[in-house]
Structures are given as C-alpha cells and as structure tokens.
C-alpha cells in the first residue's frame, strides 16, 4: 500500500480523507409491493486534512452514521455504496476490493461505536480487545502494543492504567468503557478515527469527562476524526469544522465558529436556536397537588435503598422537574408515586387524599387523575392496537364512553396533539418517533388527569422533535391545567419548562425549590457539577467547564 501512495506524490499534499459525490442506497422489500430503492446518502462530498476533526450532525435518518462507515468502505445491513469515491491518502479504497478494505479497517481507519457496552466482547479481557487490531495488522508486537495501550489508558484518564486492561467489559463503568474503546481505536495509530455518537448513551456528568479525554487524545496524537452526533453543543466542543446533514443531503458545511455563530441555512438556524422556549415561571401556590413526604424505598425488601428520605411537592398546574444522573433514583420515585413500588416508609398525599402505597388498592379516580408518559414511546403502546384503540381505551375505561361519543373525543384529542383524524387507524409501527410520543400524551390526557408523570419523555427523540413535544406539553398545561412531574437528566429541558426543580443525587434530594432559586448561586457541589456539565453551544465551553469543576462525577 505505501507503494501506491509513493507512485502518486502529488497526493501527499492532498487531504487525508476525501469523499467525492458519495451516493449510498438500500433496497427495502415491502409486503406485496415491488422492491423499493431508497437513497440514504445523496451527493455528499467532504475533505478532511490531517489532524482535523469534522463534525457530522443531523437528526436520525440524516445518513451521518452511514457516511461515517462509508469512510471505511462499509455499508451496514444491505446498504450499498452505489456512487462516488472514498479517497484515503489519495487512494480510492472502494476500488481495492475486500483485501484492500481489510488492510484499511482497524489499521488506517478505526471506529468508535455509540454503545461501547454492546461493542465489546464480554468474554474477553479489555487488553486483548484493545490491542487486537494492532497485532492483526502487525503494526506492533504484543509487548509494544500493550505498552502503547497503557499509555493511552493513562492519557484518557482511566483509573489504574497498568491493570485496567486485565478487567472484563462488565467490570468498568459505561464512561470508562467508552474511553477504553477510544484507546482501542488509537492503539493501531490510525490516520482517521470515526466517532459514532460516542457520548450519547452517557450521563452529562460522565459525558464531559469522555469528551475532554477524546479531545485531548485527538490533539496529542494528531489523528484526524469524523465526529458523528445529533448534539450540536457536543460537536461544537470537539470539532474544527461542522457539516450539517438532513435526509442524506448536505445542508451546510463550514468552520465550527461560522456554523454556530452565523448559520446560513434555515435548518441550521433551527438547530442552533433550539430550546429557546418561552416559559414564564409560575409562583408556588400554597396548597400542593401532590405531596411526597419522607419516602424511603428500595428493592429486595429494603436491601438496596434507592430513595432515602425524599420529600417533594407538585403544585396544581405547575411543573416539577426532577433532575439527576442515571442511578440517582428519579425513575424509582415515579414508580413509588404510581404505586408500582410500595415504599418502605413515608406518605404520599394527592389532591387532599392519602394514596395507598400499593397500586392494587387504589381507587379508579386515583388512577385516573395520575397518568404517566414513558421514555420509549414505541414500547409504551401495544403494537397490535390502533391509535384509536390506544387513545380510546381510557375513555371507555374511566368514562364509559362508547361509539360515536368516544370517536368524537378521540378525534378531539388527536387535534389537540396536532395530529389529524387520519391517524386513528394507524398502528404504532406506522408512526414516527415524535408522533408516537404525541399519541402517548393523548392517551394520558384522555383520562383528564390532574398530574402527569413524564419519565424522560424527550430523551429518545431528535432535538427538533423533542422541542416540539416540550412546546406541546406546555401548551396543553395551559389548556388543561394539568401538573407535570418531569423526570429528566437534561438540564436544557429543565430550564425550558420547569416551575420548580428537585436535584437528586444517589437517592437523596440535594437541592429543591422554585426554578430561579435552584438555578441561582451559591450552588452545592453536585448541582454545580450538573449545571456545569450540560454542554452549551459555545466555543471553548468544555475547557472552562473542566477548569471550574468542584467534584468528580459519580461515574454511573
């Protein structure tokens, strides 16, 4: 391979990676119909110099991962690269056949996947997997590779860099595993690394560590990188230039500063100005709707205490946001309030009545007035029921509505969630992610509840879609006078919609009060960490945030 490069010396000055007019297609076989060709990526060209980082950003289905994988000549599950060239060091890797690709992958180009937990072989020690490609491509002897890996572990800030390689994947945390995966990609000293949403599955407080580690490693090794993400704030921290994609086409490409400070296209403007939701904080009223007092709850008969002495109030028609990283007990709190997990001690008062700890003992009115919306809308709806059945069932169940009356109300609710009547006969599989969540909202509203528990309702959605859902929730709150208990790990969401905030850390409420009070310094150490970890669309934010930190994240 070096020969080929030497034959064409003019390529030396050329870019490290150049993609020319890339076109990627897939064939889908729909029931009954003829096979259909779908164009996933259409006419995308890019250039990447040595040592530069290009951020690929877009919502799901934009083709960003597909482009990332195409830079290694790989098409996922039946996807075909049907046009264009991928030039690595001036050589078209698509023309090299399987043998040529094999020499490129894991050697010249490495890949960091979104879910490190799923990408590691659970049966092998980390070190084996980290040095595997270096050994396979004979770029280093085992001893050299291990030395290099340890140096990388150290550089990436992993604890015990000498011994962590002897652990198995399940013995390190998610954030650490993602860093080990970065070490794995760097170990064979590639020219290019493709990062495919490496921090999306992590908590904000962990994400910031991983981001900083990745950024340092890229700078120190001088490797070029494609950084794929849907989060503009994240990509603004690590990349030199940004390419915005939508529906497989390029929308805008430019220097990071230009994209975030002076976007040219409307779509980019929308991405940048996201979460600019107007919401006026309501003053706390005297009488709370839901009052949770001194709840202690846990699993295994109290062997593991997940909630320790939690007390919060939700006021009628207002929003309480419960914030914290995973493992902080947010969702357990929701399970206790709904009655799915009876607490060990403590009491819950709802609309003046004391709620029984167990779901089975609650009256139908208690159940009706307290509804829940889930994070994963697609598993929260029965895939064998139509939208009409899903929304109509609470109407039948709580109000005994039948026939025309029920259908009219379903149509009304569909109108309220900004979906038309045409959706009544659709199955959940025939809806988009945002539409699914809207149907779940309608199902909750159908019961005419006083309180809706929203468990991470926007975290599985694309930013623009999530924005729409949040706006809808706020609008519905005005119309229906419903209160929300909003569980989230995303501070931007909290700032956008909350009236009061409870910050949870390891099962305890560490800070609680009206929004402005909670978000005004002085902060306690954890709230400070949480607030400073939420990425902002701003150059140099990462460095400042790391500098200003007072405590380490829990690393869950």
């Amino acid at each position, binding site marked *: 391979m070096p020969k080929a490069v030497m034959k064409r010396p003019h390529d030396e000055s050329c870019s490290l990676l150049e993609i020319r007019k890339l076109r990627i297609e897939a064939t889908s076989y729909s029931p*009954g119909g003829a096979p259909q060709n779908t164009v996933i990526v259409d006419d995308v060209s890019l250039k990447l110099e040595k040592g530069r980082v290009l951020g690929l950003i877009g919502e799901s289905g934009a083709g960003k991962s597909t482009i990332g994988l195409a830079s290694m000549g790989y098409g996922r599950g039946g996807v075909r690269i049907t046009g264009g060239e991928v030039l690595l060091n001036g050589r078209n890797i698509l023309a090299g056949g399987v043998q040529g690709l094999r020499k490129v992958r894991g050697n010249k180009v490495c890949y960091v996947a979104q879910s490190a937990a799923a990408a590691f072989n659970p049966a092998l020690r980390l070190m084996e997997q980290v040095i595997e490609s270096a050994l396979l491509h004979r770029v280093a002897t085992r001893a050299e590779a291990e030395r290099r890996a340890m140096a990388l572990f150290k550089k990436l800030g992993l604890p015990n860099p000498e011994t962590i390689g002897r652990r198995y994947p399940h013995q390190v945390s998610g954030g650490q595993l993602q860093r080990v995966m970065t070490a794995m990609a760097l170990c064979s000293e590639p020219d290019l690394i493709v990062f495919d949403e490496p921090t999306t599955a992590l908590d904000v407080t962990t994400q910031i560590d991983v981001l900083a580690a990745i950024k340092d490693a890229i700078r120190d090794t001088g490797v070029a990188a494609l950084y794929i993400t849907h989060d503009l704030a994240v990509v603004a921290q690590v990349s030199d230039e940004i390419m915005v994609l939508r529906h497989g086409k390029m929308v805008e490409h430019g220097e990071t500063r230009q994209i975030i400070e002076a976007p040219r296209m409307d779509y980019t403007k929308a991405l940048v100005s996201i979460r600019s939701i107007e919401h006026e904080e309501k003053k706390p009223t005297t009488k709370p709707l839901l009052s949770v007092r001194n709840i202690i709850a846990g699993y295994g008969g109290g062997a593991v205490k997940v909630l320790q002495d939690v007390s919060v109030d939700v006021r009628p028609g207002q929003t309480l946001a419960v914030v914290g990283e995973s493992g902080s007990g947010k969702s357990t709190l929701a399970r206790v309030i709904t009655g*799915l997990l009876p607490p060990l001690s403590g009491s819950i008062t709802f609309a003046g009545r004391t709620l029984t700890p167990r*779901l089975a003992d609650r009256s139908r009115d208690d159940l009706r007035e307290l509804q829940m919306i889930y994070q994963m809308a697609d598993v*929260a709806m029965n895939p064998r029921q139509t939208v009409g059945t899903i929304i109509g069932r*609470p109407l039948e169940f709580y109000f005994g509505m039948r026939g025309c009356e029920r259908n009219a109300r379903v149509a009304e609710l569909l109108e309220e969630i900004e979906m038309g009547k045409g959706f009544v006969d659709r*199955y959940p599989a*025939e809806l988009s992610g945002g539409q699914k969540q809207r149907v779940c909202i309608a199902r909750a509203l159908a019961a005419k509840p006083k309180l809706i528990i929203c468990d991470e309702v926007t975290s599985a959605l694309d930013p623009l879609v999530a924005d729409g859902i949040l706006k809808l929730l706020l609008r519905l709150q005005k119309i229906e006078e419903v209160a929300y208990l909003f569980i989230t790990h995303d501070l931007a969401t909290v700032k956008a919609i909350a009236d009061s905030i409870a910050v949870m850390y390891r099962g305890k409420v560490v800070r609680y009060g009206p929004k402005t009070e909670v978000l005004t310094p002085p902060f306690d150490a954890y709230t400070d960490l949480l607030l400073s970890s939420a990425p902002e669309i701003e150059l140099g934010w990462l460095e400042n945030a790391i500098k200003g930190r007072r405590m380490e994240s829990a690393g869950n």
Partner: protein
Amino acid sequence: MSVSSAPLAKGRRRIPIGAAIGLFFIGLFLFAATFAPLISPHPLGEIVGDVWMPMSGEHWFGTDNLGRDLLSRMIYGARTTILIAAAATALSFTLGSILGFTAAVVGGWFDMTMSRFVDLLMSIPTLIFGLVVLSVLPSNVVTLILVMGTLDSTRVYRLSRAVAADINAMDFVEAAKLRGEDRAWIIFREILPNALSPLVSELGLRFIFAVLFLSALSFLGLGVQPPQADWGGMVKENKDGIVFGISAALIPAGAIAALAISVNLVADWILNRTTSLRGGRGNA
C-alpha cells in the same frame, strides 16, 4: 390510512407454492374427514375381498390384512385421526396458554406452583405416561382427547409463559396496569395479540405431535380401538405385510407424513405473515 390497502390485499391473494401445496392436502383431508360416509366406496368394517389385494380399479389402494377396502378405511381414518388430534390440540392450547399467561401475569406462588407441577409432568416421558394412564382409564375417544390434550398442554404452558413473561415486562402492559385494567384485559387484550405469532407456529407443530402421538398409541394398541380406523392403527394392522412386499402399511404412513408436512407448511406461512412484533399488520 396513507398506508394503502391495495398492495396489502394483493399480497394476501398471492400464496407461496409451499403453502398452496399444504393447503391443498389439508383441504383434501378435511373434505375426506367431513364427508366420510358419503364418499367412501365401502362401509368401514365390510370385508370386500381377499387379504392384501393389490391396487386395482375396484379397490384403488387395495385391501388390508382382513380384506377390507383400504381407501374406505383411509377416509374414515382421516375422520378419527384429525378429529382426535384437533380436539386434543385445541384442549392443550386453551389449557396451556391460559394457565401460562396467568402464571406470567400473576407471578409469585401461583407461578411457582404451576411451573413446578408442569416440570413434574414433563419429567415423565409423555408416551410412557400416556400408556400408563390409558391402560387404567376406559379406552374411548373422549379419554384419549383428554389425556393427550393435558399431556401436551405442559409444552404449551412452557412456551406461553415464557412469551408472556417477556411481554408482561413491556411498558404498555405497565401502562394498562396503571390504568387499573383487570387481569382478563391484560391477558386477552394486551398480551395475547402479541404472543400469537409464536403460538400459531407452535399450534401447527403441536397438532402434528398430536397426530404422531395418537398414531403411536394406536400402533401400541392403546389408542383408537378396532374396528374403528385411524391411520396409526392401520399401520399397525398392515405392518406384517411389509415383509411380503405388500405396500398397504405405507399408505396410512404416507398420509400421516403428508398431513404433518402440509400443516407445517401452512403454519410457516401464517407465521411469516404475522412475525413482525412491531407492526400491527404483519409482513408478507
């Protein structure tokens, strides 16, 4: 509704060749079973000629070990075999799936007791268990169906409990519980529709096992009693002829095989049409 129903309807009309063959044979057997007295050339027990006469225009399949018309006995045999197998399968499915779903939804001691009891039943080989029970009980069609259905239901219980336990953990079931729905709704409206695909494929298999089980029992002399005809019993009656090069035993054996394969072909096709767990309409 923008998902047009026209191509779907078209897809529904086009039946794959395997399924078509399966449907043809099943249809043929069912026709024979339903109209047995009308279409069979001779009565069930009538001796019409010599022992083991070869195939001829008079007797299409020849005659059996007592000189009875083999075709007529095949037609009456279809009736007994399919009736007993279908009834036993229906019983095993009703019993097994309802108990299995209930165990998964209720959980706790009910699940524990049921599952261990089923383990106990399954630890004894089915055929031996069946032989012991049938040799004690009076030998008639109802007993046969009850014994076969109950023994088979342990397998169905296992499958449906496993499938339901998976579905029971999904958020939409939790949502139904939070709504206050009772167990019947959760079992029949939330879980059952989503558990149908594995159950339908199992239905085809279990029906075949029922046919084979019945045939084995009859072959051993504990199933359908003479002069009643069933395919397994007919293999037994004519098996001695094989030594003399007489094919009479192969005809009922072939019918059992044809039925088994046909039902599986159709079950595969139905399964294919309904596998999509995500979609409500299923794939082609």
